[in-house]
């Protein structure tokens, strides 16, 4: 074992409080942002009290939906018949805001960026919402089952021209993205694999919003894909992809970049890929490993990720206990570059620094203003933010940015005597608030 791979194995060992660093409110808030969009003061205290192994077990879970949240979803159900993009966006944001274990939604959002399908070509808001329902339901489980469902997903078939893929006239669109983006990554397949994989998926069609295998349009001839030969069909190709070590690294690496940090060492990716594949691609198990790891609580991961517009808005709203107008919010988030059900391309959102430019930064500040002045009024939401009738700047900074701002910022805010909503607006506009 090389030094690099030994270091990678060690980086994935469970975080040890006091040995690797303190288990404190900042660590708890960090975990809450990564695994739950963010949490309230009470949730932070709860996570702190649980301690790292239990906190990860509790947060990185997708328990059955019941109780008040189940009733909320039931109340939203009739809206589905409206079948409009703003309504489906609003429903999804409501799920993100209200789910007691929002990892389920964070993961669905991750897969939405991974299997990025856009309403722009898939048409039908209901088909898009149905795809995300599939991502939500199967996302935590084995990646193979999710992949098999996505390959048959009506919106995906429309998006990548599945109906044009016919026995005599293969269409490569889905096969190429399957290899390049969904499973292996560039450099791990040949052009021939794309062409032959396309033949294997011929006849995988969509009709009236349902998957339909059209045997007459399926090319049953011999093919060779990624070393497998024979009269391969689509499922054989998916199995061939999952066998490749590159698949574990590519998909596991994307999960790592989304949930931990964006600069994993090659040796670390190799270990993650191997663990993921050996576990039968158990996504939730991988996330428990990653989010509980020393790497996740180390300096390389802290405040390292630029929050996506959705993660920022939902995180802030969950932290402050706000109930923003989700219909309006869905439109604003699209303007900030993250339109739900409408990723910019099949590659999904680039993320990182690409979220930030003059227009989106100003837009984030305007979003902060909107959230800060939305009903219900802030002091009512969290009385701890006010002390002796005046906003408590330290409490606010602790809650919103873990208190990690330059001293000069803290001093100027304390001197400003701004009312609470404006203070919240300013704090949420700070560079530190854009980071997770």
């Amino acid at each position, binding site marked *: 074992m090389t030094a690099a791979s030994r270091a990678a194995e060690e980086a994935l060992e469970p975080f040890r409080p006091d040995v690797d660093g303190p288990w404190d409110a900042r660590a708890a808030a960090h975990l809450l942002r990564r695994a739950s969009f963010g949490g309230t003061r009470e949730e932070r205290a709860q996570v702190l009290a649980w301690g790292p192994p239990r906190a990860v077990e509790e947060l990185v879970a997708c328990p059955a939906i019941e109780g008040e949240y189940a009733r909320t979803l039931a109340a939203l159900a009739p809206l589905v018949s409206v079948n409009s993009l703003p309504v489906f966006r609003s429903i999804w944001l409501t799920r993100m805001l209200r789910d007691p274990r929002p990892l389920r939604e964070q993961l669905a959002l991750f897969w939405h960026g991974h299997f990025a399908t856009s309403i722009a070509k898939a048409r039908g808001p209901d088909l898009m919402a149905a795809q995300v329902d599939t991502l939500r339901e199967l996302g935590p489980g084995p990646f193979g089952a999710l992949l098999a469902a996505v390959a048959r997903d009506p919106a995906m078939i429309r998006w990548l021209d599945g109906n044009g893929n016919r026995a005599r006239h293969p269409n490569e669109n889905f096969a190429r993205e399957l290899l390049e983006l969904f499973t292996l990554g560039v450099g791990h397949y040949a052009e021939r694999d794309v062409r032959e994989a396309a033949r294997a998926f011929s006849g995988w069609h969509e009709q009236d919003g349902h998957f339909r295998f059209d045997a007459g349009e399926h090319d049953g001839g011999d093919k060779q894909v990624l070393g497998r030969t024979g009269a391969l069909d689509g499922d054989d190709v998916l199995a061939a992809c999952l066998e490749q070590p590159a698949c574990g690294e590519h998909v596991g690496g994307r999960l790592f970049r989304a949930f931990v940090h964006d600069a994993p060492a090659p040796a670390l990716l190799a270990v993650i890929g191997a663990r993921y594949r050996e576990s039968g691609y158990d996504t939730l198990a991988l996330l428990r490993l990653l989010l509980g790891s020393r790497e996740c609580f180390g300096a390389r991961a802290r405040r390292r990720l630029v929050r996506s517009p959705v993660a920022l808005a939902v995180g802030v709203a969950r932290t402050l206990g706000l109930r923003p107008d989700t219909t309006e919010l869905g439109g604003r988030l699209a303007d900030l570059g993250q339109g739900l059900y409408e990723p910019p391309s099949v590659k999904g959102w680039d993320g990182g620094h690409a979220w930030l430019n003059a227009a989106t930064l*100003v837009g984030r500040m305007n979003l902060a203003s909107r959230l800060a002045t939305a009903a219900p009024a802030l002091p009512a939401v969290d009385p701890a933010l006010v002390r002796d009738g005046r906003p408590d700047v330290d409490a606010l900074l602790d809650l919103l940015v873990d208190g990690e701002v330059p001293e000069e910022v803290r001093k100027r805010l304390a001197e400003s005597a701004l009312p609470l909503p404006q203070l919240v607006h*300013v704090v949420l506009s700070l*560079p530190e608030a854009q980071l997770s």
Partner: protein
Amino acid sequence: MNRHRKEPRAAAAGLSRREVLKAGAALELLALLPGGLARTWRAARATEPGQRVLVIVQLTGGNDGLNTVVPFLDDRYHRARPVLALRPERVVRLNDHLGLHPALGALLPFWDEGALSVVQGIGYPDENRSHFRSMEIWHTARTDEAPPTAGWLGLAAGLHAEHASADGLSGLPFVRVGGRDLPLALAGAPRQVPALAALKDLVLETPVAEGRGSAARTLLQELCRAPFDRTGEAAFVAAADGAAFDCTQRLHDLARTSPRGGPGTPLAGALALAAQLIGAQLGTRVVYVTHEGFDTHARQERAHEGCLRALGDALADFQARLARQGDEHRVTTFVFSEFGRRIEENGSGGTDHGAGAPALLLGRPVKGGLLGPDPDLSGERDTDVPVGVDFRSVYASVLDWLGMPAAQVVPGSPPRLPLFA
């Protein structure tokens, strides 16, 4: 080719360029000049490299080059495309064997005037058929597998910032217009290149409460942009905030006075905004615009026609705007796509990812005419239109024209093309 119309307007007005420059040397004089003469002065001044502007129009998805600049006499073209081939009588003829798609008819006057160049068979060695990899190659001007962190224009923006005055930094030297996403081509500059869908994107809303709105706004700007002891990602965001506020300030008045509404298609709107920025004297040198919808795997005919019509009409409208505001002599527009499409159409009435394709250069500064080889369709079935011109030759040539250091942006000193008059 009508050369006369390419003469700078100064000559037409009977003044030598030197005289015009002398006359206009004091900027304040400009305000005293009547409209026509002011335009003349600006046109003459525009021949200075430091005033030149490159507008890039990216056709996203892989434009079908063979149905854009059509080899309408080639039998193979017609045999390969029973559904999609354009009959000779439909094309807009450029010469005796090549013609534009009829939806690009609005560009014909520019061809006739020598203000439109067609670079045929553009691409790079061993074309990659992945949209993303190929776009990455176009965006970075590199075919090696180095992880892409900076685009060619991001590099150019960084070099420009090093040499620009403080004023240049607070203007909009490089800008992406018509969308809020930043293409990789513009990534990697030390100060994030701004992306604008509309001018109102840069208006910072003032929190209104208890009469302290503007105090809050001032404080917000100071605390966000100051470096303090920030490091890492926070320092990066603070620098980006600084650039954002600079733009906000510069565009504040423009946003208030700009007319509501505008041309119909998103591309026309983006180019209208581009013209507005160019005219606003913000030191703009490079504008990046995208036009979507070219990934025509199925039922291509109408979709492609629509995309091309939007393109041709928007470009013509853009040129007219530049002419009205007296900026046409300093602006060149470069139109490219990440690859062309296969020679053979597929069974869905569409075409799959291919290789070489034509690129366009439009504007008064360009030389006009054809460059690069006519499409050679004589290869076997399932072959591509060969690549005859490396796109990096175009990049290097336009950077030379802009007066920007091509050698530090495009690797390998590619041969230059005679693109400019």
